[in-house]
């Protein structure tokens, strides 16, 4: 019941944010144009949407059975994340180096907690959803395709990492010094996060990588949506900080999240510049087979 209530609230707030931003950034002309041409546009990205659907379903299955597989075959890295995080602030505090998350939380105020909780839940969903709307409203299909490929890459690699590496976030280890602020202050959100994710899926931070991906993609559409760049950058930065502020992720998770974002955007861009074709795949396969010595041609 709480789950439905919180989900309803989430959808409502995000729709409101989307409507406002779309009206301001996308503009009337593009919306009218999109209403006229939505069939062709949908057709030009349809295979990609299908791809994203497949990725999401695979992702859901992997998340359901992933933890059990991961506990059997995965590498436990919580202790190492804690040790690496404990070294990162060394240049600032060489004497007694604090844990980054503990250091960030030492600056906590109720207002900041409210802000970062809002950003972590609503801001994040909005940041990911707006590019899909805005890029659909563009006549050229590349930005939307690039976005879908980059999102998909993020998820696939993220889920693979979650199976290979098993780790708990700082709130689960530094329980006395770092609080899981989101869940102790805004308990209702836990019913949602618990339904969509597992607490051992920590490394890397998918919140960070998806948010940074959206921000990096904003740069590729700077001519069409110049105003989206500062908004996306500020939101992405807030999401990254929120993952640590709320005690959900280690700084190391966030750093690898940024690397994953950069990589995913590159994949998205490459994919768009040199789209993979069936012929290309056949060609590469036969080239690979030819390379096997002694094989009759």
């Amino acid at each position: 019941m709480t789950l439905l209530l919180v989900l309803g609230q989430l959808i409502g707030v995000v729709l409101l944010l989307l409507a406002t931003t779309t009206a301001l950034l996308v503009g009337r002309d593009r919306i009218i144009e999109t209403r006229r041409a939505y069939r062709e546009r949908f057709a030009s990205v349809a295979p990609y949407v299908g791809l994203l659907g497949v990725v999401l379903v695979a992702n859901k299955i992997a998340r359901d059975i992933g933890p059990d597989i991961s506990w059997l075959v995965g590498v436990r890295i919580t202790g190492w994340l804690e040790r690496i995080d404990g070294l990162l602030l060394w240049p600032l505090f060489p004497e007694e180096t604090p844990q980054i998350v503990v250091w960030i939380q030492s600056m906590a105020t109720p207002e900041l907690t409210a802000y970062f909780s809002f950003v972590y839940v609503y801001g994040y969903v909005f940041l990911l959803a707006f590019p899909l709307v805005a890029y659909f409203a563009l006549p050229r299909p590349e930005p939307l395709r690039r976005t879908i490929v980059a999102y998909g890459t993020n998820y696939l690699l993220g889920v693979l990492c979650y199976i290979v590496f098993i780790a708990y976030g700082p709130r689960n280890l530094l329980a006395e010094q770092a609080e899981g602020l989101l869940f102790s202050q805004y308990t209702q959100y836990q019913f949602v996060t618990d339904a969509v994710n597992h607490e051992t899926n920590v490394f890397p931070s998918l919140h960070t990588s998806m948010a940074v991906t959206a921000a990096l993609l904003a740069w590729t559409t700077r001519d069409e949506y110049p105003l989206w760049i500062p908004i996306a950058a500020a939101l992405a930065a807030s999401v990254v900080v929120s993952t640590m502020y709320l005690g959900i992720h280690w700084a190391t998770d966030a750093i690898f999240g940024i690397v994953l974002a950069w990589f995913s955007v590159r994949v998205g861009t490459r994919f768009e510049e040199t789209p993979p074709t069936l012929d290309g795949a056949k060609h590469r396969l036969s080239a690979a087979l030819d390379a096997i010595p002694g094989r009759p041609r």
Partner: protein
Amino acid sequence: MATTTAGCMGNVRNLVGRQEVDQLSLSIATLPASEDPYAVRIATRLAENLRRSGIGIVIDPVRPDVLFRDVLVNHDFDLYVARYPSHGDPDELRSMLYSPYAEESGWQNPFGFADLTLDEILDEQRTDEGEERIDTVHEIQRQVVREQPFTVVCFPDHLGAVRNDRFEGWPDGGPGRPPDYFGIDRVGSESTLQLLLGDGRITRNRNPLAVEYRNQANFTGLLYDPLIRSIRNNSLPDSEPDPIPWLAGSVEWTDGEILSATVRLRETPWHDGKPVTARDVAFTYEFLSDTSLGAFDTPVPTPWRRGRVSLVDSVAVQDDRRFRLQFTTGNRSVARRSLAVPILPAHIWRERADSAEIAGLELGGRTTQALVDSNEAAIGSGPLQFVEATADESLSLEVFPDHFLHTGHDDGIPDRFLEDRPFERIEFTVAPSDDAAVEILLEDRADATADGLQASVVPRIVRSDDISLTARGTEFFYHIGYNCRRAPMVDPNFRRAIAGHIDREATVADSLDGYGIPSEVPLKGQWAPGDLLWDGEASRPFFGTDGTLDEAAAREAFQEAGYQYDSGKLVRRGPT
């Protein structure tokens, strides 16, 4: 010239031939805060202090079933921090420390500790009576404090939150042990009891022998009945629990050279309708002492309640409902412990004696199906029967109408268990966290918590008028376990030095927010030796004050024990 070169090469060979020294690095396995916030807090406290003493520490938080599989089954750990699910009985120490148990899997000597003198007094407390037994138990604990096979930290309080609008008469701390459920009173017409769980293991596995899924086995205790239940009178919380004849309608003791008892079973069926017979009881004791039923070269005993089963020497079936037990001890109150194991239906468990062939455990022919089966349908003879479950979400149980509590075969059962049934069904829901559990209670979607809450939610509970806080002391104790099979934990001096890195007083005050009692011995009350009762300071004191470690003193302790430092790090030769 030739001689100089040869001499020089000799020096090099001597130098290179010596093994390099490396910093000692240890891992501390524990549970994540979402499962047990106190354990992880004690572990991080210990880790921080040991790092100050120059030891490299990696903390490894793992899911409970994985932790207990590593520690209790595979013996793959350096140090761990967890609760021991004690019932407060001194004979439990024998299971924990008896050296012949070191190779077995389960809560029997997970430390791999071996001490012949201790083995002798552990056996002695089984035969001693009265004051003599108390003295022996005190002596055992003095040895435990001296040798530190494990380091006791504290007894936590069990906290619960309850609503009183549909049900009342909750036991302190909320429902816990199986009989607690039948002392609850219904207020309105609602016949389904809604309870919240923090630990979802019972929703995945209902095998009473699967040690990695059980604490005190309270939930499987609703599904399976023992011959005798020890029930504490809630109005006299400090008294020793009363033995109530449960599945056994009557027990006649015969003293003599060998202590024995003739037991007559109550007339009651299994949940699948077949009658409970004396043959099921005989099977249970045989099966628990070797779940392979003689098929393996080495017996594979139950990993949980091993000590209890070892008290029974033989079971002779006399007729369908009558049998005679012979014990390995002459002490009745010790022997009675063996009557509290869950009785299993032979027609279901007999085929689980085969070798197990699934992943997750180191098999190698030493594990039976009985230990790894998740036993989802859980056919027992208990007062509640299994209805349905969704892993990590929920579990539904309903009252078993044919149970002897409801069919009049209830001689010797106290009246408070025989009054009108307080509920027809229990719905357990797994809450994502303790904060979420309190939230669900506040929203009036549950009646009580059925396992412990952490102290951090106490302010939320007491601020509300609708729900109330309730607490009880426990026999559970947090402890640091050492794998004495591995160097340097094999060295008692090393373990004693580690024990000096935990400040029990500060731990209880800060990590448990005061909801617990510090202790350095595993037993309470009359069983705790007077000279080791907690008086604010451990007999092996903390190296420091108010939770802050005195590095110099701590390092000196390691040096006195023969350990060496190199540029601030505790170093050892060879691979660590």
